[in-house]
């Protein structure tokens, strides 16, 4: 098997191909570059171009970035095994997803669940990742399966860069692989737990009454029906003792982070979080979801648009709502008017749940 080398002339060839297709279709209108002149025909180069990321955006990169940096980047596939076997970016490594979502209870002090960094680091080591690798993660899109991997890397104190492929696999027009995974040599990934990437239940309980006021920002990423404990709503988790949200949290449904398979326009995201939700990018912001609603999409999105200190409450609403003991210390609110309307649309086509948030 020979390793693919990036084609330095790829962009020029793609442009040439588009020109031929336009000419064949008789297209003469400038600016019609997104199609080949006839409806429903889109070239891979067009798709790749649409998913490129420009401006002052961290973590998210487009296919052209990956094409330029493929040799220096460890590419991780966050999708399920079936999808991975079917088609993947050439030489991508499949992330053992369940393992990198591991949590451990801090029962000795009763603070709630936190990422199990030993287990997560071990999982990355299994696929040959070392702490200083520059990593790019992709999935079917940019949903929570992908962002969860990014968070897991951050949680173990990954020193190399962490990037996400905007648009997911369908945006990639480079070489693809298929079949069983390539053999990689495991590494000993020594975690350097980055406790500043998460908060515990007790950390939150100590700050009740301050969120989105004098204290940290707090974002609930679930649907408004769950946030507001809408009676009879299917959005309510039947396993929970209580419904609603943490006091003071603002609701910004995570789908606002995505537009189909890509991240939402960064300018719109800035408006959403800084103008509508009134979050302060220079202050700590905590995001949380629920057992079946992964908040890492919002965690990474906020970091991408420049929020300096974004933390995850990984126990989520489920842990909070069902806490044993003195629930007066962990109150839940059911009413507020701080629901931010989002306009996101959900893309992705794998049943592995790139946007189902369940992994």
């Amino acid at each position, binding site marked *: 098997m020979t390793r693919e080398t990036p084609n330095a002339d790829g962009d020029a060839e793609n442009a040439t191909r588009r020109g031929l297709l336009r000419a064949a279709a008789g297209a003469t209108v400038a600016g019609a570059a997104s199609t080949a002149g006839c409806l429903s025909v889109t070239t891979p180069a067009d798709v790749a171009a649409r998913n490129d990321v420009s401006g002052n955006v961290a973590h998210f990169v487009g296919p052209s970035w990956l094409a330029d940096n493929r040799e220096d980047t460890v590419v991780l596939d966050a999708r399920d095994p079936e999808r991975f076997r079917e088609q993947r970016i050439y030489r991508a490594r499949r992330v053992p997803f369940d393992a990198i979502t591991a949590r451990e209870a801090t029962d000795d002090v009763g603070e709630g669940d936190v990422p199990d960094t030993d287990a997560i680091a071990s999982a990355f080591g299994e696929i040959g990742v070392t702490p200083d690798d520059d990593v790019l993660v992709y999935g079917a899109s940019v949903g929570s399966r992908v962002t969860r991997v990014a968070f897991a890397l951050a949680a173990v104190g990954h020193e190399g860069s962490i990037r996400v492929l905007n648009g997911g696999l369908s945006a990639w027009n480079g070489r693809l692989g298929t079949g069983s995974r390539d053999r990689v040599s495991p590494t000993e990934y020594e975690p350097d737990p980055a406790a500043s990437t998460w908060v515990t239940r007790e950390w939150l309980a100590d700050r*009740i009454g301050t969120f989105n006021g004098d204290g940290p920002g707090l974002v609930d990423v679930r649907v408004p029906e769950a946030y507001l404990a809408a009676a009879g709503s299917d959005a309510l988790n039947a396993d929970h003792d*209580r419904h609603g949200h943490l006091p003071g949290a603002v609701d910004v449904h995570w789908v606002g982070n995505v537009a189909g398979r890509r991240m939402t326009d960064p300018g719109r995201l800035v408006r959403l979080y800084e103008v509508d939700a009134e979050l302060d990018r220079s202050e700590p912001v905590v995001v949380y979801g629920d057992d079946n609603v992964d908040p890492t999409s919002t965690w990474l999105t906020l970091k991408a648009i420049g929020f300096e200190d974004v933390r995850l409450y990984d126990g989520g609403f489920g842990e909070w709502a069902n806490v044993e003991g003195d629930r007066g210390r962990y*109150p839940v609110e059911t009413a*507020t008017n701080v629901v931010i309307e989002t306009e996101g649309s959900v893309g992705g086509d794998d049943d592995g749940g790139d946007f189902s948030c369940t992994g």
Partner: protein
Amino acid sequence: MTGWDKQSDAPSPADRVLAVPCEGDDLLALFALDTGERLGEVPVGSHPVHATTCRGRTVVATMGDRAVTAVDASGEVTQIETGVLGPSHFAAANGELYVSCSAGDALAVIDSERLTLVDRVAVGAEPHEVAVAPDGDRLYSGSRREGVVDVVDTERHERIGAIDAGPDARVQGVALSPDGDRGYAVDQRGARVVAFETGDNSGSLSVEEPIHAEAAVGADPYDLVATGDRVFVPGRGDGVVHEFDRELDPIAVHDGFSRPVDVLEVADDWWVLDASAPRLRSLDGAVVETSAPGLVATPVSGGRIAISHYDDDRVSLVDVESGTVWTAKSPAYPFGSVVV
């Protein structure tokens, strides 16, 4: 602020102040009780709805905040964090002030001397009215969302039980008989009132039939009044007031009201406040015209009632014998007043 310094240890009736939370303007408006002269106002936070006095301070529940506001005798204003949105109704027990956080699932316990949050007691979601047993050791809190009356041990700051008011119940008003032996709760959604036993065993979830008795009332009930031998429940939607005995056996249905919201004992008679008609009407049929419909009223000594005309931004003092004593314009949406 003016007028506040007039307070003394033993104020004369002429010195008394009517303090009215005005929800629309986030103010506590002050009026001379005897004349209605506007004495000033105090900014108190978002959506003030009810006020009470405790240890020489006036404390205001600001529903739009996660805090209540205390105003002391020197005029100093202090916000006391509750941590949970929607402070609504007050009750005092064991020297502490309880306030229901109606947008959450907790009662905040406040040390009204030190003006600090002492504790939060978890209760059913969206607690509203609270009632305290005569000896202060038990507090009963109605949950609008969960349809229960929570029983709280005020010594331990702990919920020790919950009385299920029935399927789909939305508990609004909660009251105890003066002797504390019997509790009552209004189920707004089911248009009914229920009676429950109090005492050491009340609220035990193992009790199969915690409801002692129940009765249908007029549509859209909200509040209720319990006396030694009577229970009154206004039905806002039907314009009626149901009168029961202690066991909830019906005595009378008083009709002809527009939107009755409260029943007050003044000058040995029972008077009904009507939110859609500019009058007080007694259950015996006497009528006193008022300047506008009233939503909330506070009995004042001497056969008088202070009325908050919520929709008309007015406050008035009404004598049930002679009619309106004064009417004064208030900040927007005056609500539950207190005489200081």
